[in-house]
């Protein structure tokens, strides 16, 4: 009896294994994208309920945990306010110079981006921040390939799939992501990609290019659909590639993806 039961289970598991591996090899992306479209469109109202409840709970928990820190944070903010006032005065002067420089290198001012604010309503299963699900889609004018930023110009990824009410953003930490980038000070060119889902690196930098720790890495004009000048991060460490042909730099990113609530899609 046990033997019969055992072998029938093994046959079932074996059958599933073979079938799934065949489907994985075949990989009919369009069929699964269509199914994903139906799934996300049909469940959109439930998604909204879950995500808004999650945001409320998260906000409440943050408020409770921050009560004790309020006094020390207030003192810190007062100090920061004074230093920001002095920085502001300096920045006004720098801003003028910046405009002239931007005109010279034909960089688009950040204010001229046609931005759409989107609310993050879902994240990937395995905690890698590989993708985000947002509450706007095709109906709001979002299209595949559009870059996604936070603040005034920190790149976090681009739209990989669009559904009527949702869109999926593939972040720069996703192994599928490849973005052409350059360093601000030294002008070294390379490709920003994920390092096994643990962070991002600037790869394929020629030996003749100079890399500097602390230099900012920004998007270059070669990237398709991505405007030049969006910040990706700062160079933390520099290494030689395994084949010793290229240089590789580990990038420290200025944002924690797990804390993001809103992001902006650059439509134009």
């Amino acid at each position, binding site marked *: 009896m046990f033997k019969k*039961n055992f072998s029938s289970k093994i046959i079932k598991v074996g059958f599933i294994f073979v079938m799934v591996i065949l489907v994985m090899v075949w990989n009919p992306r369009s069929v699964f994208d269509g199914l994903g479209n139906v799934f996300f469109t049909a469940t959109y109202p439930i998604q909204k309920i879950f995500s808004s409840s999650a945001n409320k709970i998260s906000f409440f928990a943050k408020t409770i945990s921050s009560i004790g820190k309020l006094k020390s944070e207030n003192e810190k903010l007062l100090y920061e306010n004074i230093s920001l006032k002095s920085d502001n005065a300096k920045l006004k002067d720098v801003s003028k110079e910046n405009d002239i420089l931007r005109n010279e290198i034909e960089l688009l001012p950040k204010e001229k981006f046609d931005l759409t604010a989107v609310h993050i309503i879902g994240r990937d299963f395995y905690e890698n921040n590989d993708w985000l699900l947002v509450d706007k889609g095709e109906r709001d004018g979002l299209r595949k390939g559009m870059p996604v930023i936070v603040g005034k110009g920190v790149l976090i990824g681009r739209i990989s799939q669009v559904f009527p009410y949702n869109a999926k953003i593939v972040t720069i930490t996703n192994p599928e992501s490849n973005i052409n980038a350059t360093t601000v000070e030294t002008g070294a060119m390379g490709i920003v990609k994920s390092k096994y889902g643990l962070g991002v690196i600037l790869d394929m930098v020629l030996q003749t290019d100079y890399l500097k720790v602390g230099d900012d890495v920004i998007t270059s004009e070669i990237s398709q659909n991505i405007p030049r000048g969006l910040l990706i991060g700062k160079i933390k460490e520099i290494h030689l590639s395994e084949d010793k042909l290229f240089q590789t730099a580990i990038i420290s990113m200025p944002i924690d993806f797990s804390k993001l609530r809103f992001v902006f899609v650059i439509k134009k």
Partner: protein
Amino acid sequence: MKSFLIRSSIIIVIILLQINFLNLIFPSSYTLNVIPLMVIAWVTVTKFEKIWIWILLLGAMTDIAEMEKFGKNILFFVVLAYLVSFLSKRFLIERRLYGTILLILFIITISFITNFNGILNFGNFSLDIIVDNIVNNLFAWKRLLTELVFGISVFYLMYNILNKIEMYLSKYDDKLLGNL
């Protein structure tokens, strides 16, 4: 029909709960993946033979919702369900203490595997990933302990809910058969 609707709803709700609720509440380093825990609870509550098709559907729906390589979650869940069913026959029923220890071990393993960045990314599998992840995850005691506490609590809750649902469904099925 009723059991189809109830089980399909469970699958959809658990997937949406993971993507749109838990992943937004918990910070990235402490996110709990409840879907593999549900697979364990489901197989423990009922028989593998009765539930395997639903585990397969759960895997397929998770793959569709994840929108990446189709099939990896199906393989992961079906193998997990088979292992739980195989081991539970030997430990869970006869020896309560061993059964509890085994369940805790399963939950720890699941937490570890789902934290193991990239292990389920077939395209990027390499020795570097394994070394990086062991260094980053194996010795992160605080994280493992937190996930274990969350994991056991969630598992207990899901076990009870699924147990009640499955009991209701089997009673309903018996009643239908009786009427026939």
